[in-house]
C-alpha cells in the first residue's frame, strides 16, 4: 500500500486550549473518501483543522464558518481561493474590474455549483444555501488534490447536496468530509470514522456498515438530551 497522506500516532488535539481528542492514531491514504461523523463537539472540526495543518499546500479547504466577505460579489468570493496563483497586480485589477481569464475560470465553477445567475450579486444578498455553495466554489477553484470539508452541504436539500458531493469527488482524489447525515455518509463515502467523547469509536469501510450501526455515535447520552439538533 502507498504511504499515508495523513498520519497521527497517539496525538493529543486541542481546541482553544481545551483537550478535544486524546491519544489519536489515524492514517488516511490517497484516494480515500472519508466521512467523519459524530455529535456536535465531538471533535470533527478539530480533526479537520489538524489534517489541514499536515499538508496545507495540497488542501482545498471548505470550513463550517465560511468567512465570506459579505460586501463582495460571489465572483470575488470564489476567486479568492485562487489569489495565491496570481500576481498582486492581477488580483487588484481583478478586484476593480473582473478580468476575462478569471471570469472564465470562476464562471465554469459557478455553472457547476449553479450560481451562474448570482455571480455578480454581493454574497450578503444570497440565501444560506447559496452562500454555502459559494464557499464550496472557493474551495474548488483552489484546484488542490485533497478536499477537506466541514459540513459542506448541511443546509442544502438531499438531491442537490449529492450533486455537489459528486462534483467534489470528481475533482479531488482524496476527500475528507464531516457529515451529519449518516445515511448520506454511508452512500457517498468509502470509509466512515465515528468520533465520540474525545476518541475514535468506529473506523470501518462503509460497505461493511448499516445505518443502524451508527446510531450509537449519536448515542443515547448525546442526542436524546439535544433532540432538536438536526
Amino acid at each position: 500500500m502507498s504511504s499515508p497522506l495523513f498520519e497521527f500516532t497517539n496525538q493529543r488535539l486541542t481546541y482553544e486550549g481545551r483537550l478535544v481528542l486524546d491519544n489519536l492514531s489515524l492514517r488516511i491514504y490517497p484516494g480515500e473518501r472519508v466521512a467523519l461523523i459524530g455529535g456536535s463537539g465531538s471533535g470533527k472540526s478539530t480533526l479537520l483543522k489538524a489534517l489541514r495543518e499536515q499538508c496545507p499546500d495540497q488542501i482545498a479547504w471548505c470550513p463550517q464558518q465560511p468567512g465570506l466577505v459579505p460586501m463582495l460579489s460571489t465572483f470575488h468570493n470564489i476567486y479568492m481561493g485562487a489569489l495565491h496563483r496570481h500576481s498582486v497586480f492581477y488580483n487588484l485589477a481583478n478586484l476593480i474590474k473582473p478580468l476575462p481569464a478569471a471570469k472564465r475560470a470562476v464562471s465554469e465553477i459557478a455553472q457547476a455549483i449553479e450560481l451562474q445567475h448570482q455571480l455578480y450579486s454581493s454574497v450578503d444578498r444570497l440565501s444560506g444555501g447559496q452562500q454555502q455553495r459559494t464557499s464550496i466554489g472557493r474551495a474548488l477553484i483552489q484546484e488542490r488534490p485533497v478536499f477537506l470539508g466541514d459540513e459542506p452541504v448541511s443546509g442544502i436539500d438531499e438531491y442537490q447536496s449529492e450533486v455537489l458531493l459528486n462534483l467534489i469527488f470528481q475533482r479531488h482524489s482524496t476527500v475528507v468530509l464531516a457529515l451529519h447525515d449518516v445515511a448520506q455518509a454511508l452512500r457517498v463515502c468509502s470509509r466512515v470514522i465515528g468520533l465520540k467523547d474525545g476518541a475514535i469509536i468506529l473506523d470501518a469501510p462503509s460497505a461493511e456498515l448499516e445505518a443502524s450501526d451508527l446510531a450509537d455515535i449519536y448515542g443515547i447520552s448525546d442526542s436524546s438530551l439535544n433532540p432538536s439538533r438536526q
Partner: protein
Amino acid sequence: MISASKSSHRDSSAKALRNTSFWFAAVALLCLSMADLDISTPNPWGELGLMAAGALSPTVWSWPTLLTSLANTFSFALQGIALASVVGFLMALGYRFTLVRAFCAFIRSIHELFWALLFIQIAGLSSLTGLLAIAIPYAGTLAKIYGELFEEVDPSAITNLPNHSHSHSHKGSLSRSLSRFCYTVLPLAWRSMATYTSYRFECAIRSSAILGFVGLPTIGFHLETMLSEGNYSEAAALFYALLLLIATLRFWLQKRLLPLYLIGAFYYLPPQAQTSWQLVKRFISEDIVPAPLRGQANLNAEGLGAFGQWFNQLWQHQIWPGLINTMLLGQIVLVFTGLLALLLFPLNSPLFFRGWRGFGDAILILLRTLPEYLLAFLGLLIFGPSMVPAILALGIHNGAIIGHLVGRHTDELTLRADVGTGLNLYFYEVLPRIYRQFLAFLFYRWEVILRETAILGILGIATLGFYIDSAFEEFRFDRALILILASAMLNIGVDNFARWLRQRLHLKSMPESL
C-alpha cells in the same frame, strides 16, 4: 481576582465597574478641592447677556472676509484629512509593529495647535503650516483606527484562504498577503473606515477653524478678533457660518464629488510656504537645542552639568506644575464629561424621546459641533481665567459626543414589554445595561480630553499649553519642545493606562466616532 470574587458572597459582575467609577469620582472630587475655580470677572451675567444679545442679532460685517475664511477653513480640513488618510492607511498596514504603533501614538499625542506653533516657526503663517498641522496628528489617529479595524475583522475570511499560515516561507509572500488583504480585510473594514474618516473630517473642520486662533487665515482668526473686542454680533455671524458649514456637509459633500472638491481645495489654497533650508536648519540645529548645549560640537561634563541645571529649573517651574494642573483639570473634566453624558444620552434614545428623538439628537450634535477651544474662549470672557471655563467647555463638548454614542447604543437594547417609564426605566433597565459601553466610550475619549486640557493652556489656564505658548512667545523654542514632549508623554501614558483599564474591565469597544 477571580478566586476572590468566587469566594465572596456578593459575587457581582458589576463590582469592578462600580469600584472603578467610585475611585474616578473620588479622585475627581479631590482634584476639584484643589482646583482654581474662582470667577474673577466682576459681572459674568452681564457679559453673558451681551453675548446672548449678540447671538440674537448676528451681523455680517464683510461678506468677502466671511466667505474666504470659510473657504480656507474647509480647504485646510479637506487637504489635511486627505493626506492624513493616505498616510494613516499606509501606517495602518504596519500597525502590528510596535515601532509603527509608537510612532502613531507619538504624532497624535501632540495637538494640532502645537504642531501649528512648531511649523509657524519654520514655514510661517502659510498654507503648508495649516495642512501639516492637521495632517500629522490626524494621520496618527486614522492609522490607529484603521489598524484596529483591520485587526477586528472576522479572521476566518483570511484564514480560510489557501497557504495562509505558511505564507512566510514562500517567495513573494508580501505581495500574496497584499492580495489577500485587498480581497478580505479591506472590503470588510471599508464601510467603517469611510464612516470614521467622514466623522474625522468634521473634527478636522473644527481643528481648522481653531488654527485661526494662532494666526492662520481660517474663521477662528476673525472669531478671536471679534470676540476679544466684544463685537458679539459679528462673532455670532461667523460662528453660525461655521455651524452651517458643518451641518450641511452631508448634503453637498458627496462621495462622487469628493475628487472635485479635493482638486478645488488644492487649486484654491496650494500648500506652499516661504521658507529656506537655512531657516529649517537653524531651527533644528540651534533653536530647539536646549540653550546650554547650543553650539557645542562635543558633549562634555560642563555642558551636561549646565543642561542638568537648565532642565531642573524647567522641571520645577514649568513642566511639573504644568503636568499637575493638566492632570488635575483632566480628571475633573473626565468625570464631569461622564456625568453630562449620562444626563444627555436619553436625548438620543428611542426609549425616552420616541417622537422627539431627532430633535434631541440635533441638540447633542450641535453641542458636539461647538469647538471646545471656542467654548473655552467664550467661558474665559464670561468667568475670567480659571479652570471653570475649561471644565464647562470640555465637559459640554465631550459629554455631548459620548451622550450621542451611548444614546445610539440604546437602539440595540431589547426590553420586555412591561418595563417602567421615566426614572425607573432609566435606572433599572437602561443604565445597568449601557454602563459598560458608557465606560468604554469614556475611557476611549480620555486621551483626547487630556490633549484638549493641555491645549486650553494657550488661553491662560496654567496647564502645559500655557507654558508652551509662553515659551513660543519668548522665542524659547528649546523649552517649548521639551514641554511639548512632556505633554506627549503624558498623553501616551494615559492612553496606555486607559487601554489597560479597558482590558481589565473587559470593555471591548471600538466606537467609530470618537
